[in-house]
């Protein structure tokens, strides 16, 4: 009974959807990169912070703790290596693939970002009526991307130093250990506060923004969130070719799996 109602409720939407266009925010390659990075990040955070657990929690592992510790170390290294490889691939992607080069150019910080940031703050405190018009990537995303690059570089370097410890002076290792630990705290907190809000907790995104699976957003969302980029795309047939999703069927299927009321 309820199922029928859901299906019939979805039908008019599907019809109206035929007119809406979908805009590509992440292509397939980028989604795979994100997925691998995400899985590695979670494994690294869990296995890494295990060595900071208080004694009484460790003792609750009982006899299994030795085995747990053994696999902890191995998993942390495997996930670390994969993360480094994905990061290196991303650099290759930025430099040698057309889509990557577009990403790089759009991601570079510009003076407009500073204006946008100020404008957004003023909008938050109700001085301005409307938020500034964002381009493909706005200051929040650029900051996060920059932090990700800096964080991944530092973590990879210090991690490799700690892995090959017997080759380095202890002072270098002490620095590496502090940076690795502190950077991990910073990265996890930043992800929790900055990224989790953006893709999970933000009104109309809750419980999760499907973008990481589908890679696209609909026209309405596009006009609202990235109006400047929308205008640029609509004015340029070449960009239209790149950023407007041609076949929508697959997207719809995924959307239905993640169906939620706010769509």
């Amino acid at each position: 009974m309820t199922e029928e109602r859901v299906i019939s409720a979805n039908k008019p939407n599907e019809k109206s959807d035929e007119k809406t266009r979908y805009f590509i925010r992440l292509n397939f390659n980028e989604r795979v990169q994100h997925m691998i990075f995400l899985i590695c990040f979670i494994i690294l955070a869990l296995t890494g912070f295990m060595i900071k657990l208080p004694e009484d929690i460790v003792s609750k592992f009982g006899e299994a703790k030795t085995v747990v510790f053994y696999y902890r170390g191995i998993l942390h290294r495997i996930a670390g290596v994969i993360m480094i490889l994905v990061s290196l691939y991303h650099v290759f992607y930025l430099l040698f693939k057309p889509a990557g080069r577009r990403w790089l150019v759009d991601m570079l910080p510009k003076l407009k970002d500073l204006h946008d940031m100020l404008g957004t703050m003023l909008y938050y405190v109700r001085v301005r009526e409307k938020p500034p018009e964002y381009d493909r990537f706005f200051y929040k995303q650029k900051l996060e991307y920059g932090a990700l690059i800096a964080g991944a570089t530092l973590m990879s370097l210090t991690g490799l130093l700690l892995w090959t410890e017997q080759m380095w002076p202890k002072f270098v290792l002490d620095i590496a250990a502090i940076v690795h630990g502190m950077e991990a705290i910073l990265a996890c907190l930043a992800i929790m506060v900055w990224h989790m809000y953006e893709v999970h907790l933000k009104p109309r995104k809750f419980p999760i923004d499907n973008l990481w699976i589908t890679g696209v957003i609909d026209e309405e969302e596009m006009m609202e969130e990235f109006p400047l980029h929308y205008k640029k795309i609509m004015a340029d047939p070449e960009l239209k070719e790149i950023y407007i999703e041609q076949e929508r069927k697959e997207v719809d299927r995924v959307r239905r799996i993640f169906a939620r009321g706010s769509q």
Partner: protein
Amino acid sequence: MLAAILVMLHCGVTYAQADILTDTENCLLCHRYPNMGRYDKAGNKKIYYINDKLFAVSVHGKLRCKSCHVGLDEIPHTNVKKVDCSSNCHIKEPSTGKEFSHENMVNKYQKSVHGVDAKTNPKRFPEDLPTCKYCHDNPMYRPPRDIWGTSEALSNETLARCMGCHTASQWAERFYSHFTHRMRKRRSQEEVVRLCTSCHEDKEKMARHGLESIETYKDTFHWIQVEYGVENAPDCISCHVPLGYSAHDIRPRTDRISPINMTNRVKTCSNPGGMQSCHAGATKEFATGRVHAYGMKAQIMAANNNKDLMQDQDITLIRERAEKDFSPAEVFHYKILKLIRLFYKLLIASIISFMLVHQVLDYMATRRHHKSH
């Protein structure tokens, strides 16, 4: 009434004779009662009960009570002397045929960092230092298994081969236990750390001797491995007992045989051919670094002109030792590490609070925006 007491006494005597061969002094007549004990003047409960079966399988199970407890001829025992582990105990030591004594070990121990010999090794507060009994109770021989893995069969076969010639099974088992007792660690790494830290974590006690508390070890990856029960994890003994010596020979870091002496560091960390080999291929730069985290000594050295710190006598003592231990380079390292940590704390606090404020504002603005549409 008298008859009843006599019967009880008689029972006691026969019981003791039947169960334990070494109790020729008839101590168990009284000491077999579990409630036997008293409160001393400080209010501590002293228990004088002896479980004869457990005693018989302990490392001292073959000894008579009076071998160690001298002066028990009066009842109640008012003239008893403290047990001295370096006294002779009327058992023949097979390699020399002389009377056995722990004197050898006690002499070595007195020369070690924990010794309190008034002439050669004077200490400011000798009462703080551990005596034999602080670390050694009267341990039980473990049943002849769980050595070389958990192969009970292997032990049984070995024992059977022994008993081909040594027909007294009790003797053979005891000898086997005595031997295998030395082939395994009596304490796990975690137990070793707990034993050492029972004194070395006491800040006041350590400061009286110019030492810093050993919490600094628990900031190392060494301790985390011990905590998780890793087989190869280094405890206190691994790095502080000289190679080829026992725990009784721990020496100060200035001593040439000390494994933490700078000249021995590479060998200690890499320990080629040892049971516990950790950092194979360790370089000199790696091995000569500070292993424990920087603690109180580093703090005192870094706070050069802090007059508040200097007034404390104990601190002055720590400072004297720290000045010998710390090179200017290490003080510099400590300051740099402290700066990096401070930098990160400020960075995390400012970035995360900025993010929080930003996102809360964003949340309110988004809600507002959606309401108006």
